[in-house]
């Protein structure tokens, strides 16, 4: 079988022009890393984890370092991973203070009988697995802080509803 890896950096309605080239470089870097895993005989599961880890570490993308902020100005991250060999899967949601949620999702898949751990439980599990806890601030970029402020001002001006644009 001829191995292949694809990555994406998120569907978007508007991308600032000065960001475009960095996004292209980021996805190429991630695809190249995933492909290297495959060419060295690695499994598809290892390739997707490697590729997504690189994108999580890249502050230009909305995941890991560079994740957008919630209404309280903090980062809550979600991730999932699945192995097509046997449909085993793992996921975390509302994860805080870890650099790579995708690696924690893989640990959920491999070290527990569960599919999804959330918030406090995910944090306890990460701790038990020896996943380093990092300050939440470390995941936040100045651009995301400014974007949240702009969004909040827009929300206040357009409607008094606190639910606007909150998903």
């Amino acid at each position: 079988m001829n191995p292949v890896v694809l990555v994406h950096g998120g569907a978007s309605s508007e991308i600032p022009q000065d960001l475009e080239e960095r996004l292209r470089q980021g996805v190429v870097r991630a695809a190249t890393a995933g492909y290297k895993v495959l060419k060295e005989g690695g499994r598809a599961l290892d390739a997707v984890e490697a590729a997504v880890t690189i994108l999580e570490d890249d502050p230009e993308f909305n995941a890991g370092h560079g994740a957008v902020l919630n209404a309280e100005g903090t980062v809550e991250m979600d991730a999932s991973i699945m192995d097509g060999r046997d449909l085993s899967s793992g996921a975390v949601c509302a994860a805080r203070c870890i650099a790579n949620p995708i690696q924690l999702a893989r640990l959920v898949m491999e070290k527990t009988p569960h599919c999804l751990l959330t918030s406090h439980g995910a944090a306890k599990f990460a701790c038990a697995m020896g996943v380093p806890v990092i300050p939440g601030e470390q995941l936040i970029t100045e651009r995301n802080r400014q974007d949240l402020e702009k969004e909040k001002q827009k929300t206040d001006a357009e409607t008094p509803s606190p639910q606007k644009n909150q998903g």
Partner: protein
Amino acid sequence: TVGAVALDSNGDVAYATSTGGLMNKMVGRVGDSPCVGSGGYADSAMGAVSSTGHGESILKVNLARLILFHVQQGKAVGEAADTALGYMKSKVKGEGGVIVVSNAGDWAAKWTTESMPWAAAQDGKVHFGLHRDE
């Protein structure tokens, strides 16, 4: 949101999806990314998908599994992705994007938003793009 799908030399597929969600989201809000079948799906009998876009819409149509359903029905991966994204747009007015690989090594990157950065590596070459005309 970021994601990856892969097919290895054994013919097995996998997906991974990770996100910070929506900016200014309600605390505790969870979208499609951690939900198997919506934020992604992988079955070596068919292929693998990773999704991005409006999470609530993706959840409502089970986007990743819906695409692989169309693949199971005999559609090419690009057509399957377009069909499912079109359904999501018409049914729940949701926009998004996906990357898909079949267990035969066919692949597609499709989106209904304005843009989506993507890259694919196969046969020692890397293809990439961001806008629809790339």
